[in-house]
């Protein structure tokens, strides 16, 4: 995924002063990467759109506290990832998800054995497993950072990554009628 995430300092300064046009400029710059991150972590498109909206409401509210340390995208991404993970946690509490792809949020029984492309295979992971794979392998978060954001241990993050990759391997390797 290659998206330009460059934002001018002037735009950021205007956004900090509350200029709505500048805030919309930030929204336009980060709309797709934020949605993409949320959509890759979450199973549902509507939930990902909600995360997009919640993220930008938070950006508008807190842009004054952004001190310019590091790239703005890193700051926005942190907010988006937290919102997406919060949604998973809420859903997990609701559905008593035990973070086990074999028992909850995992592949429907009919899908096991199907030859899937990577895109579809990702959707057959548990919510937590998919989030860890995406955040670690694509976004570049460390296990320590993921553990902190999820309120879990580093071992939990590592084991989720290993189990999810084992499952991806199985899903991608299986033949059509296997």
């Amino acid at each position, binding site marked *: *995924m290659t*998206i330009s995430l460059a934002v001018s300092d002037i735009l950021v300064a205007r956004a900090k002063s*509350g200029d*709505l046009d500048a*805030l*919309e400029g930030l*929204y*336009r710059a980060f*709309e*797709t*990467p934020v*949605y*993409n991150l949320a*959509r*890759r972590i979450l199973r549902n*498109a509507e939930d*990902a*759109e909600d995360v*997009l*909206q919640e993220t*930008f*409401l938070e950006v*508008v509210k807190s842009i004054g506290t952004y001190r310019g340390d590091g790239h703005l995208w890193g700051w926005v991404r942190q907010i988006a990832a937290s919102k997406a993970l919060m949604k998973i946690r809420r859903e997990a509490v609701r559905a008593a998800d035990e973070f086990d792809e074999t028992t909850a949020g995992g592949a429907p029984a009919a899908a096991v054995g199907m030859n899937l492309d*990577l*895109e579809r295979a*990702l959707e057959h992971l548990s919510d937590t497993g998919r989030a860890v*794979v*995406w955040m670690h*392998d*694509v976004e570049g978060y460390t296990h320590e950072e993921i553990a902190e954001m999820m309120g879990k241990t580093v071992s939990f993050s*590592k*084991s989720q*990554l*290993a*189990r999810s*990759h*084992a499952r*991806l*391997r199985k899903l*991608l390797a299986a033949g059509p009628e296997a």
Partner: protein
Amino acid sequence: MTHCTMDDLLALRDNEGSAWARRHADGCEACRKELEALYQRMAQLKALPPRSPARDRWPEIRTAVLAARRRRNTRWAGWSMAAAAVLAGVMVFRPFAPPSARAGELARARATSAQLEDRLRSSASEGRVLTGRDAAVIAQLEDQIAAIDGQLGTRSVSGVDAQLQLWQQRVNLMNQLVQVRVVRASYVGL
């Protein structure tokens, strides 16, 4: 033969693998293939096309932001008006200073004024030297004090607050007069 686990392979991919896992993967065809598949999968994940939202969420965000700003402004305006009303009430009615306290302040102002009068009288007998400019300042201050005395002598100034205000002004002017007449004049007199 023990092969690398997925944990071992992921650690190797992230350059965190153990020496044993590294040695094993170097010599084991199956594990080397698994490791290569992991590298490829990570590259494929990164190459997935970005997804875009089906609809534009900005209008809803904008509406929410404007609504929040309106609420905040209304709240601030309410607080400001309430604060201004309270301040005005304090200034006019001085609710925290009971009448007895203000009467005490009035008595203190009168006493201070009398002490300053005594000091001026004693300094007048010492025959100190004044510059022309100081003499003019003294005349001006004495005129202002006389005007206040005139007001204090009328029946229109009957309330404690009004009297207190005038007596405090008188004390202030008397202080200035002492400053010019005693301190400055004695300096010139040296």
